[in-house]
């Protein structure tokens, strides 16, 4: 954790500098008759962020914050595995939305999580993976009139059937 804390502070300091550079593309000073320039607000806030990372580093050096005294790893073996399995599953879910539609990706993600990570029965898994996307479809598309991504063209015939029910 001790190494992690200072690395994080360093990354955040670099990010603050990046934000300052980006903000400085607009005026960061006071323009007479117009008030503060468009970049002033984010620029000075990013400058405060940079100063804060300096203080965080100073506290790290003095070992006053709990992570700076901790010898534990940031992620242990379980943590790494958990992050890869769950975070990776989510990544796959979001990546698949533009391919097999929001509802299709949702169904696959539920099968993956409930069956393979949760080790629940196939019955429960399929009930959730089929029931939930259908319920969401009628709630969002039917009641709330919010259109979710439908993925590539091959999903069209399937959605035409569902839309016929709503309209």
């Amino acid at each position, binding site marked *: *954790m001790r190494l992690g*804390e200072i690395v*994080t502070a360093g990354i*955040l300091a670099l990010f603050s500098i990046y*934000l300052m550079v*980006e*903000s400085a593309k*607009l005026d960061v000073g*006071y323009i007479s008759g*117009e*008030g*503060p320039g*468009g*970049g*002033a*607000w*984010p620029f000075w*806030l*990013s400058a*405060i*962020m940079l100063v*804060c*990372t300096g*203080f*965080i580093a100073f*506290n790290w050096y003095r070992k006053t*914050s*709990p*992570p700076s005294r901790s010898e534990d790893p940031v*992620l242990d073996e*379980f943590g790494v595995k*958990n*992050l890869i399995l*769950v*975070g990776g599953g*989510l990544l796959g*879910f*979001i990546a698949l*939305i*533009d391919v097999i539609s*929001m509802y299709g990706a*949702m169904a696959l*993600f*539920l099968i993956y*999580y*409930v069956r393979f990570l*949760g*080790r*629940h029965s196939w019955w*429960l898994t399929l009930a*959730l993976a089929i029931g*939930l996307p259908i319920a*969401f479809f009628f*709630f*969002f598309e039917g009641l*709330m*009139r*919010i259109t*979710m*991504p439908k993925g590539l063209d091959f999903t069209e015939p399937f959605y035409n059937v569902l839309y016929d029910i709503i309209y």
Partner: protein
Amino acid sequence: MEILGLLGDGMALSLQPLNILLIMVGVTLGLFIGAMPGLGSVNGVAILLPVTFLVPPGSAIIFLAAIYYGAMYGGAISSITLGIPGASTAVATTFDGRPLALKGRASLALVTAAIASFIGGTVANILFTMFAPLLASVALSFGPPEIFALMLLAFATFVGLGGDDIPKTIFSICIGLVFAAVGFDQISGAPRLVFFDISGFLHGINFLVLAIGVYGIGEMLWTLDTTRGKITSTETKMSVKGIVDDSKEGMKRGWKGTTIGSFLGFFVGILPAAGATPGSLMSYGVAKMVAKNPKEFGQGHPGGVAAPEAANNSASTGAMLPMLTLGIPGSPTTAILLGGMVIWGLTPGPRLFVDQSEFVWGLIGSFYVSNFFALVINLAFIPLFIWMLRMPFTILAPLIFVLSVVGGFAATRDMHDVWLMLGFGLGAFFLRKFDYPLAPAVLAIVLGPIAEPTLRQSLLLSSGDPMIFLNRPIAGPITIIAIILILLPVLNWARGKMRKTAT
């Protein structure tokens, strides 16, 4: 006395069978729309506006007001049970509602939220009935310097009383404010902070994308990591006696928060451009400030649920006030209601109370009736929400992830935001590991779009002189309190040092 007569007539109107039915349907719909992450009262009211053309205008606005009320109650439900704010107005409810649910006290949190909402709504209704025209004129005297001073106070409460690492808290506030500035500069119209020229940043970063990323995805990853996937937040059992006991406990420990939320929320709600979200966040901050032991806030204190919930209901009634009396909406939802009224041929403004008194009092009467039904319907649904929590975590977790992704998309209808949300979730997971408080960032992204323009307008008014925040009668005292709060940690540190040297 005349007011009571008019209110009586109004209530009689809202108690007609058609109106009662509309109120019940509206409140129930609102409850579920509010509970759905990514959807808030504004979506519900906007989508159901056309439906109301089927009934007379008086009944139509009663229906919409009932949805508005229901959504205010509903926002708390997902904040407490799932840890994802159902709407921006319920962000502050997660701070203590979620820890209570994790301790197995979800019913206490839900009951406290329902009762506080009811009291907040009732106090607001009474204030509304008695002081509508007077309060509208006071709210109008709040110019940009006063509103900016209020925003400063909201941030200062986090720094002075947060109890977290100070540089990390300030960092969190600033990053939230900078994220709020992404998109177009509101004043010059120039594109700003469009990272790597990705066009998705042009429409800015919606606060829900950050809030769902932090509370939905980041929080879930963190919970799975710290509990080794063996989380237990099961409630033992639900009984009528349990609900009665929880009500008593919620009232006993949450009365202060409820009182603060009811009054402060109402006033912030009246302010143009403020509304229920800043009202609830500020009430949370103030309730924490005046609490006997502010450290308990954030760990699961009923007061931390009561204050924002009383405030968001109170503010939603408050926001109706400038809309009806002056024709200025105090929140996005009231802006849509205003649009509806214009379509129905009613002109909001000072003449409305005279020309359309039956309509106005019918609406005010319906606030009382809706508030009552919202409480009853909400309490009736609590066992269902608790049941959801009893689900095994390996089912609840994927449901929360699915709701987060769908909610993140529904908020802006842009896949760019769903990716951004995942990025925020992963970032939040790591930052949380290093003790960075994230609630201030969420607060800041909500208040940023109010804070920046008011600061710039104020400095323009004063030709760049920051003394404008100190030498105005209302802004001055607020700014001074904010500065004291920001300096509080430094003062405490100096006092500790002096004591050490003395001994």
